[in-house]
């Protein structure tokens, strides 16, 4: 539906391509930007220009990086034998916060979702396989989201990697710490029961 004159419609169209922004939201954001003081709007435009200019993806692990190699891949103190596979760069931030993982990462840039047309070929799977031998990786931790797409991705990768003689593990999913059992949904509780461990 093209209602507005050239530049305004262009802006609405561009905003409408962003994830999670429908036509109505695009219109609302466009009119918000039109009302904004010029300085504020240009600061946003500039921030976009700068990231597109300076920040790219690490050529090895596809983390966000300012050079060809990200800080983690370039850090000699990290364990090169174990790689943690995640869906998005922001998942690396979450795992790093735990301080529990000393290896390297691999970002798939998504998860398998047949209905959206996203399969292994649309993800950085080939690039993961290409890293295994040169980097001497012998353990892969599958750290995709504990939802149906993340589980499908982990199943696919497990099937692909295990025959290669690697140790393949999947992060446990279970109950959130600090919550009450009675509020857990049956899927989460079922998983937590499956992943139970012996007390020592």
């Amino acid at each position, binding site marked *: 539906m093209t209602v507005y004159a050239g530049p305004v419609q262009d802006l609405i169209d561009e905003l409408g391509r962003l994830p999670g922004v429908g036509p109505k939201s695009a219109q609302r954001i466009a009119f918000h930007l039109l009302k904004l003081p010029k300085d504020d709007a240009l600061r946003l435009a500039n921030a976009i220009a700068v990231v597109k200019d300076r920040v790219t993806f690490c050529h090895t692990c596809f983390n966000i990086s300012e050079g060809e190699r990200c800080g983690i891949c370039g850090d000699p103190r990290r364990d090169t034998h174990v790689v943690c596979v995640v869906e998005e760069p922001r998942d690396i931030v979450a795992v790093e916060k735990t301080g529990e993982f000393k290896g390297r990462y691999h970002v798939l840039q998504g998860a*398998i979702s047949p209905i959206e047309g996203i399969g292994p070929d649309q993800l950085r799977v080939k690039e993961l396989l290409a890293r295994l031998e040169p980097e001497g990786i012998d353990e892969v931790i599958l750290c995709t989201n504990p*939802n149906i797409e993340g589980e499908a991705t982990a199943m696919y990768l497990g099937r692909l990697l295990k025959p290669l003689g690697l140790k393949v593990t999947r992060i446990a999913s279970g109950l*959130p710490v600090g*919550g009450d059992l009675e509020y857990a*949904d*049956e899927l*989460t509780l079922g998983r937590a029961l499956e992943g139970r461990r012996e007390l020592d």
Partner: protein
Amino acid sequence: MSRGTLHRDEAVVLRTYKLGEADRIVVLLTRGRGKVRAVAKGVRKTKSKFGGRLEPTSHVAVQLYEGRELDIVTQAETIDRFRAVREDLDRFARASAMLETADQLAQEGEVNPRLHQMLVGALRTLDASDSPLVVPAFFWKVLALEGYRPEVDACVQCGADDVSLVAFDLDAGGLLCRTCRRGQSVSPEAVALLQMILGGRLNEALAVPPSPATHEVDHLATRAVEHHLERRLRSVTVLDH
């Protein structure tokens, strides 16, 4: 419009989209109101009260608050977990093809309880059985529901029902005899399977083990749905390796 009302309904989650930081839009095929898009607030947080209940394939009892642009999911309880579908990559891909088809066929604001019922039935069958004909049978049945029941008992061209039927033509919408043949050739075994599926002998068809004929029927069903939708099904090829 009845804005601000609460609806209790039964629904299958067809697909989901990320919205903002922690929310998702869930596309539901409801029994009472057809296809509905609704916001599930906070569903991506690990402590969300919805947990894993609002993911594609979930069959849930929901309470929806009818909002201005989109509904809001206020409650969701699991009816079917479809555990085998969730934990088997191949079945998940096949379930996705059915969800994609239902999503394409259902229009928002159009009530279609039969489609909802057929989808729930097909998901239950897929969860319980590894028959290669679950998805093709669903495809043929929804085509029939849409008013495109293919002719499988006589030649769609000349009407002869005492000759062997040897080909299927998508445009003609049915099987053809040797004289009228065009389109794709079909084996006698596949013709028998089509007659079972569309002739009220579905259980008999579902008991048939995988064979070249089940593969033929599967392929033909996909082609027929794609022909009807005028678009390719993404879910069908994405995991083919």
